[in-house]
């Protein structure tokens, strides 16, 4: 085998590897749907090809040497142990390659940091273990706010039901944004550090309590884009997906007005009075969505970290202490202050449910006004 034949063979192998890297979609990074994600993909491929190229040369030389310079083939060891020219060569050439990588990388990074000129702003707030989206107007006032939690059923997770197509990548209320608009996100967190990531947008930023990070994207293609929390945030870190629905602008406007009307209506519910049955129904919904991941659907909890609701001294004792626990949370534990997440009607319903279901039967009725009165007294 002469040197030319080896060169040809290694070049061929390199092309096969490169082709496998480039064209097998499921083996590679997603191109994504934004200009930024496309430049990131391009950068990724450039560096991958450079690494593959260097790999072919280095591993090729090793393989050649391992085959030809073995004692069993009668190879006699040479005596050389340095070559200044060669050593300068392989210090200087990599430097040039690195500069060649750094220039496009810097350009893309500068583009990503251009956060001004946004068309709309949404605050993204991470909670253990859900996302909150707040649509802000020009004065940073909240006009619409909702939580986005995992929609996959516990039965699917525990292998009691067939897993759906979007297993663990589906939520009840996705973030909805219009096509072709520069959407600026202010990312923060309420408890521990989370990270908001949508691979198709090429955007990932940590959500850190006390810090407001900003990122942006422009998605031109309508569609549903899925990602996940990417910073370990406790027990259900694997169960807080990010879903963004990109819709044409007029559809977005319809959605926004319907949602903000419903939001206002929901806020108004806090001033209503409900029958015990209504409270039970609403309370069960809230419990299933908010409480059951820790306290479990049957109210037995997972002691000692997540205490039971059934027979709990809090849920069967004086109501004010129960309201305080839910409203303010328990600092230093996973029990959050739910005053920020639930309105008075939802708080009343879930407290009513906890006191009169799950094996408890205190027999009292908790109305939204009781919550408001309790909060006013604090």
């Amino acid at each position: 085998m002469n040197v030319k034949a080896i060169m040809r063979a290694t070049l061929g192998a390199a092309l096969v590897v490169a082709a496998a890297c480039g064209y097998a979609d499921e083996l590679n990074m997603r191109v994504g749907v934004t200009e930024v994600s496309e430049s990131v993909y391009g950068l990724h491929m450039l560096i991958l090809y450079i690494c593959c190229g260097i790999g072919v040369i280095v591993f090729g030389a090793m393989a050649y040497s391992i085959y030809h310079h073995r004692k069993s083939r009668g190879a006699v060891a040479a005596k050389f142990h340095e070559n200044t020219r060669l050593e300068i060569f392989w210090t200087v050439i990599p430097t040039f390659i690195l500069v060649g990588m750094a220039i496009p990388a810097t350009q893309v990074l500068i583009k990503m940091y251009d956060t001004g000129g946004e068309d709309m702003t949404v605050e993204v707030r991470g909670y253990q273990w859900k996302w909150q989206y707040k649509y802000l107007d020009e004065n940073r006032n909240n006009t619409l706010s909702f939580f986005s939690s995992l929609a996959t059923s516990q039965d699917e997770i525990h292998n009691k039901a067939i897993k759906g197509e979007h297993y663990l990548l589906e939520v009840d209320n996705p973030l909805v944004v219009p096509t072709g608009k520069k959407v600026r996100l202010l990312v923060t967190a309420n408890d521990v550090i989370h990270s908001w990531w949508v691979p198709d947008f090429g955007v990932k930023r940590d959500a850190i309590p006390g810090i407001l990070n900003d990122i942006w994207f422009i998605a031109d293609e309508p569609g549903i884009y899925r990602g996940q929390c990417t910073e370990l945030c406790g027990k259900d870190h694997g169960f807080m997906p990010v879903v963004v629905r990109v819709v044409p602008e007029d559809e977005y406007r319809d959605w926004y007005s319907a949602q903000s009307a419903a939001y206002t209506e929901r806020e108004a519910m806090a001033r209503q009075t409900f029958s015990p049955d209504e409270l039970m129904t609403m309370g069960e919904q809230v419990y299933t969505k908010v409480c059951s991941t820790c306290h479990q659907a049957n109210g037995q909890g997972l002691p000692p970290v997540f205490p039971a609701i059934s027979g709990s001294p809090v849920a069967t004792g004086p109501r004010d202490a129960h309201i305080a626990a839910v409203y303010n949370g328990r600092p230093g534990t996973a029990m959050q202050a739910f005053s920020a997440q639930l309105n008075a009607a939802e708080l009343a319903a879930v407290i009513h449910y906890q006191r009169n279901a799950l094996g408890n039967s205190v027999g009292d009725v908790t109305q939204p006004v009781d919550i408001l009165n309790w909060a006013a007294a604090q």
Partner: protein
Amino acid sequence: MSAVIETHHDDHHHGPGKGITRWLFTTNHKDIGTLYLWFSFIMFLVGGAMALVIRAELFQPGLQFVHPEFFNQMTTNHGLIMVFGVIMPAMVGLANWQVPMMIGAPDMALPRLNNLSFWILPFAGGLLVSTLFMDGGGPNFGWTFYAPLSTTYAPPSTTFFIFAVHLLGASSIMGSINIIATILNLRAPGMTLMKMPLFVWTWLITAYLLLAVMPVLAGAVTMMLFDIHFHTSFFNAAGGGDPVMFQHVFWFFGHPEVYILILPAFGVVSQIIPTFARKPLFGYDSMVYAVASIAFLSFIVWAHHMFTVGMPLAGQLFFMYATMLIAIPTGVKVFNWVSTMWRGSMTFETPMLFAIAFVVLFTIGGFSGLMLAITPVDFQYHDTYFVVAHFHYVLVPGAVFGIFAAVYYWLPKWCGRMYDEAMGRLHFWLSFIGVNLTFFPQHFSGLAGMPRRIPDYSIQFADFNMWSSIGAFIFGFSQLILLYTVIKTIKSGEPASDRVWDGAHGLEWTLPSPPPYHSFTHPPVVTDAEAHS
């Protein structure tokens, strides 16, 4: 020098003590080296069992075996044990055995400190593992323990974890002081710094890295302790603290730490490749300078672990450029290893197999490291399985294969008996296949978007995870072959010659196999044939 009088009435035989006291009270570098290595291997099995719990749960989508809460305890303790309980002690064990023999010294410079630095370890390791059985469970916030998950939201056992980290840190600091003192003071006449074997060089630099960064880690965990118990707000935003500050402090320790784990393995490979290529190490001087450059750069790249926290543009660019620079000295090392093999007369005994696999697979880990250095692309890779694949490629077929290579290379010298070559090769090939089957598919699941540290995943990642789990079980169980081979060598191996390998050079090979209890009671003559090998 009238104070030094040659007297013979003190010259009684200094052999090993009897029974258990030999190991409890020993101040002998070989006994302590042996203790370090066995401790490391036991922890390897414990940490490995945790990895197998993780891989069993991830074999299929859905929750099968463990609760997510326990899963997080497994990932956390697996990482902590492998870093602090396996790789670091194993490297110190190798240094204990080899450094005095390689520089022509009778023992380590500070033998009593040596005993203390080892005997802290089992207690620290035991304390760490015991947290798993405490109320509320063990540490569950990842081996990087980011605040406030590790402070305000942490289980009560975190206090014990902090104490365990303090003990581990104290042990490492004592160990590195001892290694520095030995290398700088006990070299045989003629063993100048630039004649030292590369393994000694890499350990000298590693020991300085340890001295520099272990106190930083101690500071980080102490601030955590204050936040938890004394209601300070170092890392609590609500009290004016900064959770990102924790990450800066942690990674100022953490990045040099990863070089602490890998540099001694560089040294091992730089000893083994020349031996089996029967040719001197190519570019000795540039190897030394490359290690020193890598060590220096390791202090100014820490925030590349934090590209997604929202640093300003200038910060991102600085850390990207500085990180890319590491590729240059690392490249020099790889090119020099290949050039050492080039036109050699190679044979492929087990140590050489592990060393060659080290060069290839560590380089793959280096490539993914270079990719991760590019900030805009890192946004896509960060905290996905791509990162998991990257650091396992540099740590398992990197650091761990380096340790395996060292054990097979020097075991005949230590025991005076030869290991079973066929078993060694079997161990190598199963490990090699297992490691690649485990970690190569993780590149793909990461690129496809699978975050790390999740107990369950969407169905698109199912195939890659199944391969990974199969590979992990192959790799895990093949380590029992190492245990069997080592015990068989100690009990019934064929006698080994003093030189053991016909291409071996270095002072350790001038000693009998096994070497005397006090390696060199008289300083040896350092000849050109034995130096710089």
